[in-house]
């Protein structure tokens, strides 16, 4: 019998190693896997590269991970927010590296990784600072920039319900990056509000099929 559930968030993140690239779901705090991040802070892995839309809000979740100085590099689209002071301080002190990626390129580069593409020509960012030094090409009269996949060693995501095969459904706009990050990471760890019996999720309504999820934990 295959059962991907683990007992605690600490068990789930135990395998994350120093220097790993970790995708973290969420858009602001919606969909942020707060309990998994707390467990990661307690676990102690450092020199992490984090992929997230933002760079932490307030002093919890991703912001707390930053504050604990576990993050070497952020790959994100929107670090600067009214309450992104933890990131702001590290960035201004030169203590964190930033790769700024337009949000749709972040999405499609994550999708490219998950779907095995080698690179994609995207129109987003053409002619801007964020495409400087990148290969460009005109295709049918429109300009594109060549962008490479963003993959990860681990993805930490938040879903609403999951079953022991790792099938997931999400809640409202907490869905955001969860499904595409799940496909792009070698090991995807999902925190869910409830682990439901196999068969409780309607097969028409599963958003992330279990093939993309390696571990899940109810929090």
């Amino acid at each position, binding site marked *: 019998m295959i059962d991907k559930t683990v007992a605690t968030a600490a068990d789930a993140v135990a395998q994350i190693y120093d220097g790993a690239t970790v995708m973290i779901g969420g*858009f*602001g*705090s*919606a*969909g942020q896997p707060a309990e998994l991040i707390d467990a990661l802070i307690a676990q102690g892995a450092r020199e992490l590269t984090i992929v997230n*839309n933002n760079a932490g809000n307030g002093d919890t979740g991703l912001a707390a991970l930053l504050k604990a100085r576990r993050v070497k590099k952020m790959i994100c*689209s*929107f*670090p*600067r*927010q009214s309450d*992104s002071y933890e*990131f*702001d301080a590290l*960035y*201004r002190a030169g203590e964190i590296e*930033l790769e*700024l*990626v*337009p*949000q*749709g*390129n*972040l*999405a*499609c580069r*994550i*999708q490219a990784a998950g779907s095995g593409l080698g690179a994609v020509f*995207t*129109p*987003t*960012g*053409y*002619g*801007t*600072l*964020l495409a400087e030094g990148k290969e460009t090409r005109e295709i049918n009269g429109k*300009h594109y920039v060549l962008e490479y996949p963003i993959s990860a060693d681990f993805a930490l995501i938040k879903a609403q319900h999951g079953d022991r095969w790792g099938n997931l459904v*999400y*809640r*409202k*706009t*907490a*869905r*955001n*990056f*969860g*499904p*595409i990050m799940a496909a792009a990471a070698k090991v995807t760890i999902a925190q869910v509000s409830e682990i439901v019996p196999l068969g409780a999720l309607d097969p028409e309504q599963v*958003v992330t099929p279990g093939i993309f999820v390696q571990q899940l934990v109810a929090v």
Partner: protein
Amino acid sequence: MYQPLNRDQLAARVARDIPEGSYVNLGIGLPTRIANFLDPEKEIFLHSENGLLGMGPAPAPGEEDPELINAGKEFVTLLTGGCYFHHGDSFTMMRGGHIDICVLGAFQIAANGDLANWHTGAADAIPAVGGAMDLAVGARKVFVTTDHVTKKGEPKIVERCSYPLTGVGCVARIYTDLAVIDVTPQGLLVQEMVPGISREQLQAMTGAALQFSANCQ
């Protein structure tokens, strides 16, 4: 004498140009306010990049849901008939040309339609771009709404943007507190001005040559 539009008037003016049935993405800030002025009799589909279509107004106090937010991370609601989706699908809508109209703010707009709205280029600024570049290339029509000049009185509509670009030649129409201006292959064409302003006055506050349509005074 003339009176610039206030923010609500400007939002209301943009709202008038959004036809029923349009799929619309309203950027963070002033553009978000446009939602308040859409004709409630018209069905207009508001898209938010974080994965919802059919976005409704702010919830009643006490009914906020931290998992139902918009791109500006404000609490919102979902209309009957709206739906949720993931970021890949959301940006398929944006990049793939499925959004009819997006409305963005601006630091600068150039006469050729270049838009700068994400980065002042200041050395100590922390850059943040979000979905603006995707909307700039992907929406069928990019509207910009902005004050006509900066707080220091400098033109925001310029010959060439000095700030880092968001998109190249992407802007279709500019709504300022003083005028409505189309970006055309022949240059900037003023379609409307606030009452009492002269063509010369508007040109003096604009950093690029303006043409004026016949209905502007």
